[in-house]
């Protein structure tokens, strides 16, 4: 891999700025059957909660125009499952891993953060604050700057590795959210998570998702992601991992220009299992075309 793609973020020495997004790549096993995972800049693992979770009832996904809804419900094997069954698969791998952590209470987050951040293979944590806060009537941690900041502080206090806070776009003011978690000690931001959406089956008159509402992802949401990253990157000094509908090299460049320092590809993995290596392979030629020597020259390029 060429030097010109290398990016360095807190805890993450990335060969290139491209990683799969959390929840869209499992724990790497399946896509590892398609290509060598070491080509990736990093991997964001599926959200992990303290105990194993089954998640929501099915149907859990629905298609929307240029996007999809999901309501997986954080199905995962729990901390022990991840440590003993998933992480060992990476023993001989060099790709940095980002553990995405979730919980229903602050204590749950702390528990996962403390344990996963200690694992040798984990280079950073990604704090998924879009989870419903059971102590506050199910309102997501990620919709109130104070709640999000408090959570960030607690997680930072126990984490052995840098912490990225993954912002929810379902807020009036993304800038205050970003500033609040930065002040609370976040080492970086990941944005955006999914927009809340719904589809109704007109024949059955019922929501398509068993959970009624789900998270909208895919190319449809890209303009919202770009806008939010553009807004936030101007006021924070920590790096941003950008995501939301990335599908082409041009999309990757657009996210970097908006202010992201690296990007994550989510939904499009389902469309094309080879999307990440394809983007990595074709990025150098795209840089040539626009006369850019090193990928870092693009970061925040729309702001200058």
């Amino acid at each position: 891999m060429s030097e010109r793609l290398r990016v360095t973020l807190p805890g993450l020495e990335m060969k290139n700025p491209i990683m799969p997004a959390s929840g869209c790549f499992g724990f790497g096993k399946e896509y590892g059957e398609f290509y060598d995972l070491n080509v990736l800049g990093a991997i964001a693992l599926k959200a992990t909660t303290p105990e194993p979770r089954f998640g929501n009832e099915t149907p859990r996904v629905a298609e929307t125009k240029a996007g999809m809804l999901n309501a997986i419900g954080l199905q995962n094997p729990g901390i022990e499952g991840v440590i003993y069954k998933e992480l060992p698969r990476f023993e001989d791998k060099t790709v940095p891993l980002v553990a995405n952590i979730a919980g229903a209470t602050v204590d749950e987050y702390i528990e996962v953060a403390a344990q996963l951040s200690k694992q040798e293979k984990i280079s950073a944590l990604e704090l998924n604050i879009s989870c419903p806060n059971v102590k506050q009537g199910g309102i997501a941690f990620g919709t109130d700057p104070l709640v999000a900041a408090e959570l960030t502080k607690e997680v930072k206090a126990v984490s052995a590795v840098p912490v990225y806070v993954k912002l929810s776009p379902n807020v009036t003011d993304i800038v205050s959210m970003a500033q609040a978690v930065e002040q609370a000690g976040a080492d970086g931001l990941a944005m955006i998570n999914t927009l809340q959406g719904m589809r109704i089956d007109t024949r059955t008159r019922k929501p398509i998702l068993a959970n009624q509402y789900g998270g909208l992802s895919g190319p449809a949401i890209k303009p919202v992601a770009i806008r939010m990253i553009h807004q936030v990157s101007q006021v924070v000094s920590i790096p941003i991992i950008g995501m939301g509908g990335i599908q082409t090299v041009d999309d990757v460049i657009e996210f970097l220009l908006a202010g992201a320092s690296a990007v994550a590809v989510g939904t499009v993995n389902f469309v094309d299992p080879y999307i990440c290596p394809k983007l990595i392979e074709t990025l150098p030629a795209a840089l040539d075309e626009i006369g850019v020597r090193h990928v870092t020259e693009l970061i925040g390029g729309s702001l200058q």
Partner: protein
Amino acid sequence: MRKQCELTIVSQQKIAKDSYELILSGELVRQMTTPGQFLHVRIDGANDLLLRRPLSIAHVDQSCQEVTLIYRASGDGTRRLSGKFIGTRVDVLGPLGRGFPVEEAKQGETALLVGGGIGVPPLYYLAQQLVAQGVRVHAVLGFASEEDVFYEEKFRVLGETWVTTVDGSYGMKGFVTAAIDEAGLDFDVLYSCGPTPMLQTLTERYVGRRAFISLEERMGCGIGACFACVCPLVSGEAHEYRKICTDGPVFPVGEVLL
């Protein structure tokens, strides 16, 4: 390493109301040896219909590297697919999943194949393989109405076949179970694919026997990574599950909760 691949349309034909037989050709077909497996099909390069569609392998002809899919044009994607011409290249991921355990039926035994509507296609490839290994095949095919019936003659070539329609416009009136009862059909091994209520009825009747059912669920990745297609176990801990795309779509009756 697995691969996704482009196949080329060599034939596309309407075979019943809203139902199409699509024949694709290419290298990848060589890997399609197990009935009950499916292909995860991208409709085309346009991104409005983002997700792939899972479609069962209905027939494979290795001599000319052709695979047949049979699908009902019900939604946006399958309708658009039905408008594709011969020569169009189709992006296909697969074969995916675990298919029907053909080897469960031994030479000389009787296999009962029960298909409902768009669950019929995978049973055709299965029937061929069973017959090839000396298994006697009985097929019960259920459709909504006369205009929906397809592949009856093709099944008849392979074994005794009963057709039912819900409205009685063709064959026996009623559901597949009506035919099973009326004809007093028994089996050594049962294989079935169709709507969930049908599979539930068969499960009630035949749990504990050598019976295998193929399930459907909305899918994301099709390869086990997204956890869209998970179903809980009949017995097992609350968080235990099977993925329909990789552990299935075929399961022994009684293993997963319908």
